[in-house]
């Protein structure tokens, strides 16, 4: 399936009129992630490398937190190192985890590659996975939240 500009406009209109602030639409190899009030529009395998880095000449805080801190009762799992994040063990394979599933502390939530060295990333917390922030095959910074979990005791 491919999306036309008209489809996107309609989806945006639906989201605008709805009570939701966020919409994730996934069909085949296409993923659309819309979030209201922010500039985050990510596509699968976004060509980060070629995106121009434009910023005005006035010094401003460099990286405003792209994701608000976890609200009470939720916990974010930060990237333990900088590298390229992968949601699945290999291209085409099913992702390690999906939103809504239960994770244990030892559950692998993804892989971070640093110069061809693959590092398994574990949840480190037990609970329900409520959100996945990191986009597949893109660079994540040290400390960047990868997923959000609602911990259970």
């Amino acid at each position, binding site marked *: 399936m491919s999306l036309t500009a008209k489809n996107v406009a309609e989806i945006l209109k639906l989201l605008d009129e709805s009570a939701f602030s966020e919409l994730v639409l996934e069909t085949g190899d296409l993923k659309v992630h819309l979030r209201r009030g922010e500039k985050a529009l990510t596509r699968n395998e976004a060509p980060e490398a070629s995106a121009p880095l*434009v910023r005005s000449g006035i010094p401003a805080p*460099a990286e405003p937190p792209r994701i608000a801190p976890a609200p009470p009762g939720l916990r974010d799992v930060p990237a333990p190192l*900088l590298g390229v994040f992968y949601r699945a063990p290999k291209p085409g394979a099913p992702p390690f985890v999906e939103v809504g599933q239960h994770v244990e502390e030892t559950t692998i939530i993804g892989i971070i590659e*640093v110069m061809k*060295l693959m590092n398994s990333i574990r949840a480190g917390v037990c609970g329900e996975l409520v959100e996945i922030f990191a986009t597949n095959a*893109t*660079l994540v*910074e*040290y400390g*960047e939240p990868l997923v959000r979990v609602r911990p259970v005791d």
Partner: protein
Amino acid sequence: MPIKRILIANRGEIAVRIIRTCRALGIETVLAVSTADRNSLGARLANRALCIGPAPASDSYLKAETIVQAAIGSGSDAIHPGYGFLSERAALARLCEREGVCFIGPTADQIEAVGDKLRARLEADAAAVPVVPGGPVTDPAQAQMLARRIGTPLLVKAVGGGGGRGMKRVDDLCDLAEMIDLASSEAGAAFGDARVYIERLVTMGRHIEVQLLGDGLGGVIHLGERDCSVQRRYQKLIEETPAPCLSPMLRDAICAAAVRFAQHLCYRSAGTVEFLVDVEHETFYFLEMNARIQVEHPVTEQVSGIDLIAEQIAIAGGEGLRISQDQVRLNGCAIECRINAEDPMRDFAPSPGTVTEAIWPEGEGIRVDTHIVSGASVPPYYDSLLAKLIAHGADRTTALARLGKALGEVRIDGVATNIAFHQAVLGDPEFVDGGVDTGYAVRFLGRASARAGV
């Protein structure tokens, strides 16, 4: 291939310095930062800041794989290593070569050739550049024989050392074997290389170095010398160009020797050859080559009008040397004071903290290279350099007057600084006369504390 986006693998004032040149050239910047530097001036000025790890340098600024991954992942086509950290680690340059990322600096082989001090001595010999009498140590008997020929006092030095680390002084040859053992085990622990060599200790020496630019094909030019003799524990505090009270003949010979050395290596990028100048005998010896941009590069920029970072980028981008030796014009005199967050009252102990207020001077011939603005933090994990205050004038008297006035205008609250030390040195007749040797700063501090009755 022209460079469009540079990942800067450094912090502090040099990160800001590199960003400024990149901005002027229309090159985008990605700054690698540790968690301690997330809110630094460099992180604000760069087009993008990428957090590479926690505060300790060994977990962030010293991780070559992470740096190269950050460059590739951010679409940067080149890495500028600045000074310190990974700048002279052949491993980073080699990783860049392997991954097709442009390293703004010399080749990995060149870094290795000058990083091993014994090999550098051999290269100097091969380039007909005089070295301090000395040589490698193989066994105690050979060391004794060599030491007798060199004479005392002498220094036992670590092959993998530098910047004053891993050195032992020997005044009596009875102590030689013991000092070699000590230096060797220390060197093994500190540098992972237990090899040591011995060298004559030149007691009255001036530290004079030559700024070079090489195209990597054998083309090398020099941009004059710098005198960095005001040092304490091998840390430079004041640097100036031209070196005062140096005969034109000796200056020309030193610059020519430096060019010869770099030509011999087919050196690429900006580099500096350091010499120890024996004042009594009007001779000079090769000390080492620094295969990077140096802290004190601005004094050379002020007198030459050449942006050394821009030339590094041009060479890395394949443009070669854009200036010929004939086109180099050195005008007037420039002097730099390193303003550090350290407390002269407490034996120059580092003074980390938050700078509550920072006011830097402005004026004719004044340049300040800094990352410190009001509210900036000085983390305890890194060096204590706050700023470099540089004064340029038509002659040394003018530059000194401007520097003195500018120092008086600096205001730094929240951390201790060595500004009072600089002001005192600038008022000392021996320094004002010019041509002090590397023992000067320690003698000066001794005189000052004697006067204070401490």
